[in-house]
């Protein structure tokens, strides 16, 4: 007797993410990060009370891709805007989504002060070691010796200084509750990144203060690599310079049971 084949759905498109084509280049891990954020919003049933704060950069159009409320902040000012929203509407869930050109360069003051005040917001920080949207110029996070359109012989640390390790820096601040770095270069690390995003969002929901997840990301177009090769480049070059790990986990966060 032939029984009808029964199937279970292993993976389907998250509800909080709109079913549209993005403007990101093929292979860009912005899409992966969007998906992880949307999956966590679905899991925590936060869609109706989430307010995202978009930054300037490739992710400036993030509001076209999420089925949640969004505002766009001035360049680098997403943590300041999120501070205002969260203080006025403390029952909402507020997160910012920023790239390294936005957060680590023009927005450095805002992120440091939001962290040291212990603002009850969550930050998703995409670190791809260059300015993606404007054509791959050198960013504060560009690796020493890395060639970009504005450092064509490689970043010279005598001229341009050293890259900033944002997670390590913010972890020193007493106000920060949860600061970790994850990578998006393979399925294992993507799973770990999703867990970190979940903990960061739970940190905010339980009122435990500032949380940030730094996600090492690729930029195949501006690195002049194929998507598969850029994942390899990230693993070989960025991960050694930006070690993955938990840089600040407040004891109250560590005690959380999810």
């Amino acid at each position, binding site marked *: 007797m032939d029984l009808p084949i029964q199937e279970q759905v292993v993976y389907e*498109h998250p509800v909080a993410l709109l079913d549209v084509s993005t403007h990101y280049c093929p292979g860009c891990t912005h899409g992966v990060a969007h998906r992880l954020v949307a999956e966590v919003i679905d899991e925590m049933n936060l869609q109706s009370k989430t307010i995202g704060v978009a930054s300037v950069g490739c992710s400036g159009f993030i509001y076209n891709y999420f089925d949640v409320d969004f505002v766009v902040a001035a360049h680098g000012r997403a943590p300041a805007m999120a501070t205002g929203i969260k203080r006025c509407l403390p029952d909402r869930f507020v997160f910012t989504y920023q790239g390294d050109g936005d957060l680590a360069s023009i927005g450095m003051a805002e992120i440091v002060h939001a962290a040291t005040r212990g603002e009850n917001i969550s930050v998703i920080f995409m670190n791809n070691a260059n300015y993606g949207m404007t054509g791959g110029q050198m960013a504060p996070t560009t690796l020493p010796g890395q060639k970009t359109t504005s450092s064509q012989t490689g970043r010279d640390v005598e001229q341009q200084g050293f890259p900033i390790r944002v997670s390590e820096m913010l972890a020193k601040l007493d106000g920060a509750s949860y600061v970790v770095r994850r990578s998006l270069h393979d399925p294992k690390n993507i799973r770990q990144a999703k867990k970190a995003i979940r903990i960061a969002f739970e940190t905010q929901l339980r009122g435990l203060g500032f949380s940030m997840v730094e996600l090492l990301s690729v930029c195949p177009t501006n690195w002049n690599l194929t998507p598969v090769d850029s994942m390899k480049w990230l693993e070989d070059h960025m991960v050694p310079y930006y070690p993955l790990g938990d840089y600040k986990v407040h004891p109250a966060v560590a005690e959380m049971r999810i």
Partner: protein
Amino acid sequence: MPPKGRIEVKEIICKGCGLCVDACPQHVIILAEDRINAKGYHPAELSLDGCTGCGICAIICPEAAITVYRQVAPAKENQ
């Protein structure tokens, strides 16, 4: 016997980046060479039997274009 699965790729969203092709542990995903989608990319597709429905392609897909299904083993008659 390993479980059987299948994937559905939303071809209009797929950008043919090839990350799923590289990540698939069974090596059964290819980029379709015979057609392009509206954006001009060769979309990913399942080429061979052997998909186990593990979902790794969906985890790495930057476009969330892949839906993964896995067959459920039919109940035995004496149960």
